[in-house]
């Protein structure tokens, strides 16, 4: 009922406020050498609305917003702000026109206080401009914070606050500079579910105060919960602009990708088999010699996907590297298929039948300057038929590559192009093809869908579930809760290098996981090991 009320409220507000478009972008075309990033795009923002720009990676949504913010100049087309035609030459012009942008990566000075960060570059001065009037600054910040219900204490240093709070500081910074129109680029990427909810409330507050908001995102769920209207962009062109209340996730996904997409994966009920990966009391240090993993234990069984959920930077990277033999294990034990791999080299761990999908595919997964054929044997280049007595058998390598390209539907002219010339999704397919070829007993997949478009995500998920079907063990490390909830049989939540708890997927909810990801404990009975 509450949602109905909300909808009604928005409809009412729409009638009152949506009298004029604060932003009108007409026939915007932006051509980069060789690429049409925006092709006659029409986009309008009404006063007081939250308008989502939805599209896959590379669809052109960030380009469009960078044009609005003055970072790029359009090749052709006009921009109207408050009904007046404007050429936005630089971000300075944009700010003057009341347009503010919150980037995905925050631009804050860590040891400065919130107030200092907000006034940076725009400080109230006293003593003839030689000293910063900190008191006025703090008062101003406090005033804006209260006005929009941001609940920010101006005196705390950035380094002491959470990511969600940092985002609010960025929003506050834009408001302080007089923004009437806010552009948020992938605002939810770094937030926990609870923080996402809070952000939604804040944005609604802002619109009540008459601000207008553009959200750039590729996440369907948030789109539906936070917006009034949605403009879908595909390959630089606007596919459609629709009211949020009149659409759903499936049709949005179809608009975004251009074909029917299955958002939920089919998981069959399945009994897990014997233990493949067993981690006992693991302790690992990070590159700064600080404890990154403190006393972690878990098992992964055959025919099971165990997901490690958590906010980025809680030890996931170190854990994965240690399991792959790339990082020293201080104490504890790792058993893979009953072989003690605690102190083995990567090569020997691979021998046991371990496949990796690394988190950073361009740095760790592929030699970008190598051809696809060369990349597709990385790790088993010393095995027959690809080499014999140290001599490479390139005809076999090429045959192998051609086979995998067809089998995994990798979009490439041929196997001789360099890995760097492929799109992210296709690069990931190359890695998956390579790692699946050895038919691994255990697959360690670290953020396997990071930065991928919906179509590629669907592909990766299907393949991971296939491993499970074939009675292989999968360790999935992911920051995406949807992914974790959709794929895993059991979910281990990691927080500050410790496993806070392991939930059965059927008991897990986004709320529970969110609490645990923030380091909170669930009440008795909530946790089932």
């Amino acid at each position: 009922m509450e949602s109905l009320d909300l909808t009604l409220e928005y409809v009412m507000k729409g009638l009152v406020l949506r009298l004029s478009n604060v932003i009108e972008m007409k026939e915007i075309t932006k051509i980069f050498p060789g690429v049409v990033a925006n092709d006659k795009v029409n986009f309008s923002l009404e006063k007081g609305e939250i308008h989502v720009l939805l599209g896959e990676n590379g669809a052109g949504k960030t380009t469009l917003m960078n044009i609005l913010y003055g970072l790029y100049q359009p090749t052709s087309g006009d921009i109207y702000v408050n009904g007046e035609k404007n050429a936005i030459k630089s971000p300075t012009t944009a700010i003057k026109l009341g347009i503010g942008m919150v980037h995905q990566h925050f631009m804050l000075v860590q040891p400065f206080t919130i107030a200092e960060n907000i006034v940076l570059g725009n400080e109230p001065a006293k003593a003839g401009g030689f000293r910063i009037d900190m008191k006025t600054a703090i008062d101003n910040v406090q005033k804006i914070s209260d006005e929009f219900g941001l609940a920010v204490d101006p005196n705390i240093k950035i380094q002491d606050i959470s990511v969600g709070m940092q985002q609010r500081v960025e929003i506050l910074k834009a408001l302080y500079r007089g923004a009437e129109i806010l552009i948020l680029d992938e605002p939810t990427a770094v937030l926990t579910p609870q923080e996402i909810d809070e952000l939604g409330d804040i944005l609604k507050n802002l619109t009540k105060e008459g601000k207008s908001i553009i959200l750039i995102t590729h996440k369907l769920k948030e789109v539906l919960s936070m917006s009034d209207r949605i403009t879908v962009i595909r390959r630089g062109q606007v596919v459609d602009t629709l009211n949020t209340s009149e659409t759903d996730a499936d049709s949005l996904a179809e608009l975004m990708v251009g074909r029917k997409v299955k958002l939920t994966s089919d998981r069959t009920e399945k009994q897990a088999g014997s233990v493949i990966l067993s981690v006992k009391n693991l302790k690992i240090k990070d590159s700064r010699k600080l404890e990154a993993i403190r006393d972690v234990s878990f098992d992964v069984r055959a025919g099971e996907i165990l997901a490690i959920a958590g906010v980025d930077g809680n030890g996931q990277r170190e854990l994965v590297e240690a399991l792959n033999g790339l990082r020293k294990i201080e104490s504890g034990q790792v058993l893979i298929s009953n072989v003690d791999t605690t102190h083995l080299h990567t090569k020997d761990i691979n021998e046991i039948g371990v496949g990796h999908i690394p988190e950073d595919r361009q740095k760790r997964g592929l030699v970008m300057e190598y051809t696809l054929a060369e990349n597709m044997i990385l790790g088993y280049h010393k095995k027959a038929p690809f080499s014999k007595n140290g001599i490479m058998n390139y005809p076999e390598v090429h045959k192998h590559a051609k086979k995998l390209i067809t089998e995994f539907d990798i979009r490439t002219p041929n196997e001789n192009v360099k890995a760097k010339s492929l799109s992210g999704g296709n690069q990931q397919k190359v890695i998956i093809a390579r790692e699946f070829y050895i038919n691994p007993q255990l697959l360690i997949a670290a953020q396997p869908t990071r930065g991928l478009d919906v179509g590629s995500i669907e592909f990766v998920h299907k393949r991971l579930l296939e491993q499970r079907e074939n009675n292989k063990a999968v360790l999935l490390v992911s920051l995406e809760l949807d992914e974790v909830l959709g794929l895993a049989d059991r979910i281990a939540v990691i927080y500050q290098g410790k496993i806070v708890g392991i939930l059965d997927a059927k008991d897990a909810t986004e709320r529970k996981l969110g609490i645990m990801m923030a380091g909170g404990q669930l009440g008795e009975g909530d946790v089932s090991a």
Partner: protein
Amino acid sequence: MKTRFEKIWDSFRLPIFAVILGFVVGAICIVIAGSNPLVAYAALFQGSLGSITSFGETLYKMTPIVFTGLSVALAFRCGLFNIGAEGQYIAGSIVAIVTGWVFKDMPGIILIPMILIMGIIAGGIWGGIAGYLKARFGVHEVITTIMLNYIALHTSNYLVRTVLNPETLIPGSIREAFTVSVPEQAKLIKLNAILPQFTYSSAHIGIFIAIAAAIFIYFLLFKTTVGYEIRSVGLSPDAAEYGGISKQKNTILAMFLAGGLSGLAGAVQVTGLIYSVNQVSMLPGYGFTGISVALVGVNHPLGVLASGLLFGILDNGARQMQLAGIPKEITGIIQAVILIFIAGELIVKFISDRNKKKAIKSKEVE
């Protein structure tokens, strides 16, 4: 799909243009100096390729720099900058003298391979030290190889003056500023012994060893698992590691092989041309020229062979050019221009690659 020829053309296009530009700029300088560039270049090529004898002189000049060029190129393929070819060359040449003296009674057919192998091992160890320090302690190879150059130079001078001096080893000799010579049977065959047309040219069969080395390194880099691993570490150490390829092992191996090639340069130079090692006040320079040779040869073994020939031509033809009344420094200018254009292109490429990486990153942000 690109043909094989197009692919080869792609990688050699840049140095070929650079060379043409080098000659054009050289010509402009010659005009400014008041001479006719056509006369100058005619003399240059006459003096280096005009007769079998002068071609022979070009061949012996290019021999050591092909080896050191290969050395730098191989290290570079593993992502290492081997400035130490100088020191490795010295290590190879001094050990060649030692081996020649110790086994001076052996027949040439055994002694020559032995000297060459010992030269390879000596240079290999000298390079390997830098590789080990990098792999084990992360000390940058540029620092260590430069330091090892001077250690090699002064150790060599010390040995020249003391234990390897004719005064020490041959009773009744006086003290010299050079070592004892390699035994007669250990000297490489001169080309004029095979083809009389080479007349007084100092060319020796070392050039064939250099060509064989280039072909061997080509095969090693592009047709073996060792080369596959070395190149992956050079292109992307992190991805290589993930594929179970040891960064450390390959760093040491690549530096050993690179050092071995420079050491071989020293051993071939001793057995083929100089026969003894002199006391010198500065580094011989083959290693540094090797860096240029590798650069112009785009770090490809066969490219190194071609660019070694070019450097040999410039070096040898300069004399004839001087006889024609044109300052021989012109060849220095040509070399410099070629290098500037190639290095400049590499810088441009480096920047554009970095921008591309940035673009990829910001795309992911999107």
